[in-house]
């Protein structure tokens, strides 16, 4: 949906859900795929795991960033709906009468925005150790 800056349309639930879950899911993919790359790639005797991990980090961080951008756009829509509800006129939806419409969307969008920041930061943080620690062959503590 490409709403204009002054649109008072309420974003649909699926976009909100995508914004909310996009960044944590990107992190889950980064963690599990990274762990698997280290475990399987190395045990198979292949080289180049560093490059694979680097690409993985870039892709997942990009996904987290995209969900944060989506969240920001949804937040702006919520804010516009909030302003529109404050104006006199016929309310557009049931909960605008209860003073809730924009606030509810803005709340979820801000939540998604913060999630994007936190999990994006974590993905970048997780991408750092492979730059400085040997990946293959597997090291042992013994």
């Amino acid at each position, binding site marked *: 949906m490409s709403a204009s800056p002054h649109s008072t349309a309420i974003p649909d*639930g699926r976009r*909100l859900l995508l914004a909310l879950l996009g960044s*944590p899911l990107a*992190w*889950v993919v980064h*963690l599990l795929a*990274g*762990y698997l790359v*280290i*475990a399987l790639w*190395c*045990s198979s005797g292949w080289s180049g795991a560093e490059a694979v*991990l680097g690409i993985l980090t870039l892709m997942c961080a990009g996904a987290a960033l995209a969900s944060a951008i989506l969240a920001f756009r949804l937040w702006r829509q919520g804010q516009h709906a909030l302003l529109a509800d404050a104006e006199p006129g016929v309310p557009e939806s*049931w*909960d605008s*009468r*209860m*003073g*809730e419409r924009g*606030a*509810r969307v803005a*709340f*979820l969008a*801000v*939540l998604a925005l*913060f*999630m994007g920041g*936190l*999990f994006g*930061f*974590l993905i970048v*943080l*997780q991408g*750092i*150790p*492979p730059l400085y*620690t*040997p*990946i293959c062959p*597997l*090291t*042992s*503590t*013994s």
Partner: protein
Amino acid sequence: MSSPPRTFTETWDQPKGFIGFLATIDNIPIAVRYMVTSFGFFLAGGILALMMRVQLARPENGFVDPHTYNQLFTMHGTTMMFLFIVPFLEAFANYLIPLLNGTRDLPFPRLTALSYWTYLFGGIFIYSSWFFGLAPDGGWFAYMPLNDKQHSPGLNMDFWDIGLSVAEVAALGAAAEMIVGILRMRAPGMSINRLPMFCWAMLVTSVMIIFAFTALVVGTAMLELDRKELTSFFNPDHGGDPLLWQHIFWVFGHPEVYIMFLPAVGIMSHIVQTFSRRPLMSYTLMVLALVATGFLSFGLWVHHMYVTGISAAALGFFAAVGAVVAIPSGINVFGWIATIWAGKPVWRTPLLFSLAAIIIFTIGGVTGVMVAAVPFDFQAHDTYFVVAHLHYVLFGGSIFPVFAALYFWFPKFSGRMLSERLGCWSLGLMFVGFNLAFGPMHWSGLEGMPRRVYTYPTGLGLEDYNLLSTVGAFTLALGVILTLINFGLSLRRRSEAGSDPWGGDSLEWSETSPPVNAQFNSIPVVRSRHPMWDQITLKPVEGDDPEVVRAARALDGRPERWRGSLVVGVTDGRPLALAHLPRRSIWPFVLSVGFVLLFLAALLDNVWIALPGLVVTLVALGGWFWPLDTESVAIRETGAERHGAGASRAEHPSGSRDGSAFGLPLAVGDRSSNGYWGTGVLLAILGTASATFIAGYFYLGQGPTPLSPGSEPPPLGPALWASVAALSSLVTTRWLTRTVDQGRDGTRRLALVLTLVAQLAIFGLSLASWLGADLEPARSGYASGVLGVLGFEWFVALGLAVMLLAGLLWASLAPHDPRGRGVALNASLVSYFSSVNWLVCLVTVYLWPRVL
């Protein structure tokens, strides 16, 4: 079966007498039993801890022998982790969630009762082992191979494993209840951004329980199969791997820490804002912290496995998560401090307990960041430093908040006030005692004292630390006893609390203390995040949305002949439908007895116990799913049968249906029903279980490169035919959902039959494939992995067959009854899962080893 009641009060009355006691399913009496039982386990676990401290008070002490000491620490950890903290917090939630949400009960009252009874019997089951001298002795984490049959031949760990399984069922049931209850059953107007913090906390916690406890259920099933020497998941002699157990256990175990902490975040947020006389600072950030912690907690399990030889680069991943999880925890702590700082705090006992919790949890959090650092953990692993850290986290994150909550909500539960003076003394003793007990352990750990040792030699410099810890433990116990005395005195003195003794902001304070059976006789209308502070009235007023007004009026002292409450939209709190709630039932109790008999049979390998257990279970399930009289009344009164299915809320924007006496449809037989949402939660459980089995299969490293001689994958032919059946099932299931959506009751039966045939074909053909393979799970880790993946699909397919048969029965005997449509719709969800899961099995077990 008794006739349906005639008045609103009679409808919500609790059953009387002994049978009535067993048949009660109301959230409040069940929650009170839950609390009393779990607090009893807390005291038992505390006594075990004191015995350990007596033993360790002096070097080379002989108070208990090494074997008894093993039993003490195993049962102490098991009790506190599984039988106290989580059940106690769930009990709190059982009591409070409907009150906070402004609704009359939880969505599945019979599940509430089942959870309690299975929990009670599971706890008794584990504790009964003391009477036979067979108390579990292999640690609350049951590491392998220490706990396999060869190294732990007695029944001790079988008691642990099987008893725990019973308790896990209870936790999963309670979690499903909470998720659907919090998302769907709230007061009109309570949109997602107006949810009370405890509801947010329990929502996140319950979702975590679904994923974490399911992994544990699978792990303990694997463990028991290994101990029965039927499989070799963890046996390295046969290609299994003991570290697989650690992975599965800690995928559960680390989130478990946060499962115990997050409800406390909710509790303390309520207390801090009430006694600071202002709203919580940054509600949005506090919710963010809850949700983010929920996710992050699943990326921390390797923290417990730093010294198992995992690659340094991989350890870096998990160390990063360990550092970042401090951010949401920090948000919580600073949020509370800022709220107190900006408010006008009233220093009453609940707030003081919360402050103590913040201090202790912060110390535990700091040492948590220390042990999350890989080099430090290499030194501190398995020392008393870790014992100190985990107790600071658990006392600060759970025990002190639980006491804060008891002091805060005891007036609501009992209608009586507690003594402030005794409360402060109790807090003082607990705070000093706790720090005295666990503070010195940091130093004894850094001095090198290992965990789980029954004694230590003289002259290592550990004597003073240990003596201080013992003195502290007894001081802590004295503080707990003072609170118990406080409860007793309060109940005798009859100091009336009134409905709102603290000036709280949330809806529970609008009800009497204790609440009457039919809480919220009038459904409140919510227009604020703090309705008791911001709203002049909880009744509908001019300017409210007409739908809200209509819903509130429809439920004002009604329905009279059946238990009904409101179903609302997940995010917007918009009134959608009415939910029928069962009134009383003996079947949850009977079913839990059946479960216990089956688990006892598993413990003793006794078919003569298994048979009655199976009969009792089947009878109870039959009784459970037998149509309820009150639901028939509800269907008649709301005209649900006449209007057929597929009449979604969107098609009735005015919220009314001709013939409904309430202006709202009944949530039955379509996607608005609680049963449909509950089935959705079931799918999450099934998906997690399947993923755990598949992860285990791959972890054993046997998929692509079979290690054991003769580990050939099962034959492909039958599996391909089963896949044809799975694809057919997807088509027939889609048809089944369409018949329900379009209200074509006549063709529903055929769709059900075809889906049933397809599912039975999946079961039969995959079983034939397994039988045609030369695989011995008892002697092969690979075969165990295959059996796990396939066996789970069989379990799902057979369970689904029972659901489809029930749907067929409905379609044949009462084709126009919406309950039958509901069964078919729920079965269709599981059918989609079963079919897709089989296709995943095909790739995992059959194609992967052949391609790679």
